[in-house]
Structure formats: structure tokens, C-alpha cells
């Protein structure tokens, strides 16, 4: 399966070519190249998936295939950094998800980004992102993963700051980069501790059924916990940074400053699930070596899911609602991993997490692309500027509706199946966890339908009369998006309708063996009922303009205000960084830099200058004077030679 290398090389080439020619080629050419390359990669990924899942099953277990692996840097006989490609069920599944969403987003952007300045740059960055994300999922060792992990961060930074003339976009890009980078510091520390004790970077050795590499770390502890626990906690913090877990989630809502297709690709479907993928990749290590950390993952996930869902209920910017919903859904996946067992039916959580990752990528990309279509039509992100759009944009309306049903967990849409598995895994873990997750699922249904009704129903759309001129050449009434934009919507909606029936457990499970999905009737009925009630409440409140939302807001004014301001977490961060870290750490260090280090360097420079001014007189420019000195020198040397 050597050809899988092409999947990695193609987007890199596309990035280099598009990045180098930049504006020398017409936007259309750049866009076509980017999209066609992605199309080829998508076909290749599908072929890889077909070949892998049909040919590489040995004794009922999917084996790990490493088509290529080369040594890159060698430290010792055991410790070396490799670059290679590892195919196993989860990485093949990710290949399919990433290339599919990436292709659709490229396709969609042809129309959405039409006429934007820097169109070619946009496509170059998209290719860079796809390259890094694919490199991340097929990594054969932690270090390769870390390299691509950072590359993903960079491309996310570049794309959030795509409108770099807008101060808010620049600030958002910086925030995303710094927060994730801060988390990655812990990731690096985790990697270093882990490799120090296990003497390997290789996933194969670390996640083997009966790993021998942990023997060296058996007795070593730090502050009461084993060193491996600390290492795995550090690695999880890295994942939490990328996947926006509490309290590192603050960057994701701001990241919506980027173009909407980028939000769909990076900040909803692919990059933000990198943390989940990381935990899944290390799952055997978490489960067997450090179960306490795995439980921590579950609790942090549950809290984040609740926290984000509450905030999502009151946000007024449609992309931010979707952003908080993304945080909440990713937290669902984390919970599923955290509560999972390992073998057989106990491995529900793992399978459910990956399944939810798969279905969520599809319907959340659909939601974002739908939101992009709406924003394209009304030129605003705010709910108050929308309402009654169903008459103008039927395709967007229906596809958005399907996605909302899917995320709310209504059968037969894909979200129901995956979420149901997560809920039953949570109930198996503890009824308390299950109860919380059900409550969050209800909140999810509520806020998604609040969003849906606010955009497409509610008050009638007020056509703006005094719009002046229109630079897009269409009338003042909102209109359905062109084919280039509606095709991805329809495609994703179709996937969302059928994806739930994929026998996902036969492809992806914690051990690689078959897993048969059983719908747990009690849990399923309960979750559907709860979701339906939430949808009903949302329908009553938002289908027609009513006073209920405002009344509720004033009744729970404390909660409402807190949630609107995202529970002041950003302010807390600002306080900690500006007041505490800047004053007590950064300023003294800056003083030291300026008054000690710089002063030393200035001292060298000043001394040199002083000396050179003093000896400048020797250099008179008079040839004869030089000759005189030369003669004296010669005579002196001659005299010395004669004497000694």
C-alpha cells in the first residue's frame, strides 16, 4: 500500500505550488488545482479504506499496516525519530473523514470565497492544513505526530487570521495559537517523560497488547502518582488544548473570525478532534497503565460538555452557537473514551467515540457550511438579522434541518446512533455520568433548534431597503446559494441520513476485533424522548416570535448574563495573564533583559568604539609614514634575528 504516501505528498505539492505562484495565477486556476488535488486524494483515501478493510483482517482482527517507515533522527539504538505511515482502523477512518470534508470545503469555497483578496493564498493554506492533518493521523510515533500537530496549529493560525486587516481576526488568530501552544508545551513534556522511561517513541511498542516498555517506569513516582500518569496527563492536556476542553476552550469561539468554510473544516470537523484522536491512539496506554487519568478525561469531558452547552443556549452569533456546540460534542467523544473499557462489549465507549467523531464531522461540517450559506445571503452573523429565511433558501433550510435532527439525536439520522452508544457507555460507567450526559443531550437539542428556528422561522425577514449598491450583483432579498455551495450541503445531508446505518463497529473498535452495535432500547427511547421534549420547547419558544425567551432571561438573569459572557472565563484569563503573570514574571525578566543583558552588550560595543577612536591617528593615509613604520618593523625583526 505504498501509494498512501501520495495522499501525503499531493497536498504538500499543492501547497508549495499554490503558495509560490500566489497571485500570478488567476484565482480560478488556483481554486481548481486545490479542489482537483483534493478530489484525487479523496479517491485514493477511499481506495485505501476499501483495500485496508477488505484485505487486512487477520483472524478477525484488523492488523496494523506500516507501508513505509524511515529513520529520520537516531539518538540511541532504541530512541530514534521515524517518519512513516501507520494504517490501522482509526487512522484509515480519519483519512476518509479528512479528505471528504476537505474536498467538500474546497469545492464550497470556490463560490463562497469568490472575489476575496488572497483567494490563492487561501487555497494554499487549505492544502497545508490538509497535509498536516493527514500527517498527524498516519503518524507512526509520537514525535512525528507532534511535528504535524504543530503544523496543524500553524495552518489553523494562518486561516483564522486570513482577514489579516481585521484587528479582531488577528487577535483571534493570536489567541488560538498561544492557547494551543501553551497546551502543546504540556504535550511535549509528556512526550519527553514518556520516552525517557519507555525508551521509545513508537506507537507499536507503546500500545501493544502486553507492552514491555513500561517496566522501567514501574517504581518511579512523582508527588504520589506514577511518572507515566504524569506523562499521560501532559499528553492529554495537549489534546485538550487542540480539542478545546475546559479550561482551554477559550480560543475556539474566537476562531470563528476565520472564513466560514475554514470553521467547518478545521474548527468543527477535523482539527479539533485531533485531541480525541490522540487519546484514542494512546487508549491502551491510558486504559492499562493510567486508568486514573482516563477517568479524569471523562470528568473533564463531562464538565466541558455541560459548560459549553449552557453557553450555547444564549449566544446570539450563529457561528458562536455552533462553536460552543462543537466544544460540547467533542467533550462527548472525550467522555466516551474516558468511560470506555477495553475488550468486547466493554469497549463500547471507544467505538462510540470514534463513531461520533465520524458522524459529528459530517453533520457539523454541514451545519457550518449551511451557516456560511446563510451568512453569504444576509451578510451578518447575528441571529437578530435573520428569521423567516426558509422561504428564500429552501435547500439550506432542509439540509440544516437534517443536521439539527442528527445532532439532537433523532433517529434515523446518524447522530442518534453514535450518541446513543455514548449514552449507554456512560450509563454503564455510572448512572450519574449517564444522567448528566442525557441532560446535555437535551440541552443540545434545545439550542440547536433555537438556532434553527431563529434563522429559518421566527419573525419574517425584513428586506433591507437602503442597502445602497450591492457588490455581489444580486437583489436585496436573500437568495439560495449557487450550485457550488449547495452541492456540498446536499451531499453531507445525504451522508448524515445514511451514516448511522454503517456497521461502524465492524470497522473500528478498541481491539481491532468486530464489535456489534446493540441499540440499548431503554437508553435510546429515553434519549429520543428527552430530545423530542427539548425540540418541542424550542419550537414553542422560537417558532413564532414570543416573549417567553426574554421572560426566561430576566427570571434567570444571573445565569443568563453569566452564560452570555461565557462565564467570564476570558476575563479571568486576561486577569491572570495581564495582572499576575505580566507584573510578577514578565516585567522583572524584561527589566533584567534591558538592564543587565543589554547593558553588558552595550558595554562591549562602547569599549570597542572608545578604543577605535583612540587609535584612529595611526591610520593617516600618508604612504610614506606607513613605509617608515614598515621599515622600522623590518629592522626590529632583523635585529632580533641577529641577536638571538
Amino acid at each position, binding site marked *: 500500500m505504498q501509494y498512501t504516501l501520495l495522499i501525503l505528498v499531493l497536498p504538500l505539492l499543492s501547497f508549495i505550488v499554490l503558495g509560490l505562484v500566489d497571485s500570478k495565477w488567476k484565482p480560478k486556476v488556483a481554486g481548481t488545482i486545490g479542489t482537483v488535488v483534493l478530489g484525487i486524494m479523496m479517491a485514493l483515501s477511499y481506495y485505501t479504506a476499501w483495500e485496508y478493510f477488505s484485505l487486512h483482517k487477520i483472524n478477525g482482527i484488523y492488523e496494523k499496516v506500516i507501508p513505509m517507515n524511515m529513520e529520520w533522527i537516531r539518538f540511541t539504538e532504541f530512541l530514534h525519530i521515524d517518519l512513516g505511515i501507520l494504517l490501522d482502523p482509526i487512522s484509515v477512518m480519519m483519512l476518509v473523514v479528512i479528505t471528504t470534508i476537505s474536498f467538500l470545503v474546497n469545492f464550497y469555497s470556490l463560490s463562497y470565497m469568490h472575489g476575496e483578496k488572497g483567494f490563492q493564498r487561501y487555497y494554499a493554506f487549505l492544502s497545508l492544513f490538509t497535509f498536516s492533518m493527514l500527517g498527524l493521523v498516519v503518524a507512526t510515533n509520537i514525535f512525528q505526530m507532534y511535528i504535524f500537530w504543530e503544523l496543524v496549529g500553524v495552518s489553523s493560525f494562518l486561516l483564522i487570521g486570513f482577514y489579516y486587516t481585521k484587528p479582531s481576526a488577528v487577535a483571534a488568530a493570536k489567541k488560538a495559537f498561544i492557547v494551543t501552544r501553551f497546551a502543546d508545551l504540556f504535550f511535549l513534556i509528556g512526550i519527553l517523560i514518556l520516552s525517557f522511561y519507555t525508551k521509545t517513541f513508537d506507537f507499536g511498542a507503546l500500545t501493544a497488547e502486553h507492552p514491555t516498555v513500561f517496566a522501567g517506569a514501574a517504581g518511579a513516582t512523582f508527588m504520589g502518582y506514577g511518572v507515566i500518569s504524569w506523562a499521560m496527563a501532559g499528553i492529554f492536556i495537549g489534546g485538550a488544548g487542540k480539542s478545546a476542553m475546559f479550561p482551554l476552550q477559550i480560543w475556539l469561539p474566537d476562531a470563528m473570525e476565520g472564513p466560514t468554510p475554514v470553521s467547518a473544516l478545521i474548527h468543527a470537523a477535523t482539527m479539533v478532534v485531533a485531541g480525541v484522536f490522540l487519546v484514542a491512539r494512546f487508549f491502551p496506554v491510558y486504559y492499562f497503565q493510567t486508568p486514573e487519568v482516563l477517568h479524569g478525561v471523562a470528568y473533564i469531558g463531562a464538565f466541558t460538555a455541560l459548560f459549553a452547552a449552557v453557553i450555547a443556549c444564549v449566544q446570539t452569533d450563529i457561528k458562536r452557537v455552533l462553536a460552543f456546540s462543537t466544544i460540547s460534542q467533542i467533550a462527548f467523544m472525550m467522555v466516551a473514551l474516558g468511560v470506555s473499557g477495553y475488550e468486547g462489549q466493554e469497549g463500547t465507549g471507544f467505538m462510540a467515540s470514534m463513531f461520533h467523531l465520524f458522524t459529528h464531522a459530517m453533520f457539523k461540517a454541514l451545519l457550518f457550511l449551511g451557516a456560511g450559506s446563510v451568512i453569504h445571503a444576509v451578510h451578518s452573523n447575528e441571529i437578530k438579522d435573520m428569521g423567516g429565511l426558509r422561504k428564500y433558501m429552501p435547500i439550506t433550510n432542509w439540509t440544516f434541518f437534517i443536521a439539527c435532527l442528527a445532532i439532537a439525536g433523532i433517529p434515523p439520522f446518524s447522530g442518534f446512533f453514535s450518541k446513543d452508544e455514548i449514552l449507554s457507555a456512560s450509563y454503564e460507567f455510572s448512572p450519574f455520568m449517564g444522567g448528566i450526559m442525557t441532560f446535555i443531550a437535551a440541552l443540545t437539542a434545545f439550542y440547536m433548534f433555537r438556532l434553527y428556528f431563529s434563522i429559518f422561522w421566527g419573525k419574517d425577514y425584513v428586506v433591507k431597503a437602503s442597502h445602497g449598491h450591492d457588490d455581489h450583483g444580486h437583489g436585496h432579498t436573500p437568495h439560495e446559494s449557487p450550485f457550488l455551495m449547495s452541492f456540498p450541503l446536499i451531499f453531507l445531508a445525504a451522508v448524515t441520513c445514511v451514516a448511522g446505518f454503517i456497521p461502524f463497529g465492524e470497522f473500528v473498535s478498541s481491539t481491532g476485533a468486530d464489535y456489534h452495535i446493540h441499540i440499548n432500547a431503554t437508553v435510546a427511547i429515553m434519549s429520543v424522548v428527552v430530545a423530542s421534549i427539548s425540540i418541542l420547547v424550542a419550537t414553542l419558544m422560537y417558532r413564532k416570535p414570543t416573549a417567553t425567551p426574554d421572560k426566561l432571561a430576566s427570571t434567570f438573569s444571573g445565569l443568563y448574563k453569566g452564560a452570555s459572557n461565557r462565564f467570564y472565563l476570558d476575563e479571568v484569563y486576561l486577569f491572570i495573564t495581564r495582572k499576575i503573570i505580566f507584573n510578577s514574571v514578565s516585567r522583572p525578566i524584561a527589566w533584567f533583559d534591558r538592564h543587565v543583558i543589554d547593558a553588558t552588550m552595550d558595554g562591549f560595543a562602547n569599549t570597542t568604539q572608545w578604543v577605535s577612536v583612540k587609535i584612529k591617528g595611526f*591610520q*593617516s*593615509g*600618508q*604612504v*610614506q609614514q606607513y*613605509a*617608515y613604520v614598515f*621599515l622600522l618593523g623590518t629592522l626590529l625583526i632583523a635585529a632580533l634575528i641577529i641577536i638571538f
Partner: protein
Amino acid sequence: MDILNNILAGQIPMELYLGVSLIMFFAGIYGFLSRRSMLMILISIELMLNAADINFVVFNRYLFPGQMEGFFFALFTIAIAACETAVAIAIIINIYRNLTSVEVGTLDQMKE
């Protein structure tokens, strides 16, 4: 007295040749250091070169009579001295065109 006898006998000793070249060389150095005109400095340099040529020839003649290296080296030096003079005069002419002077003291731009 020995020296005088030798001279009279037609055998000039090496020390005399070396004495001549020594005088020429230091006359050249003196000229180089004291003259103001660049042309005179150039002539002084030629004087020093010629002193060196004499040394080559003399050492070859008296110390290694069977060999020719010293003579040829002297010929080389003469050729190179001719080239060097041509270049130097070209430089001096250019300096004169720019500064209307061949006084070496006026040429102090080299310090910058």
C-alpha cells in the same frame, strides 16, 4: 690590502658587489621616505629592485657557479619591474588628472 691586490689582479671579490647593492638599496629607501614627488618615489623603488637583482646575480655567480637560477630570476625581476613601472605611471597620471598634483602628501584619502 688583499682586496686591492685582488682588484688589481682582475678578481673582484663578492663583498664589493654586495656593498654596491647595499648602497643602492638604502639610497632607494631613503628616497622612498624623503621624496615628495611620486615619480621620484617610483624611481627609488626601481633602485631597490635593481639592488635586489644585483644580489641575485652575485650570489649565483660566486656561490653556485654551475647554475643559472639567479640569472633568470634577475631577468624575471627586470620584466616585472618594467610592468610595475608602467602601471605605476598610469596610476600617477590618473592621480594628476584628478588632483592636479603628484605630491604624495596630498594623497591622504586612503585613511577613509
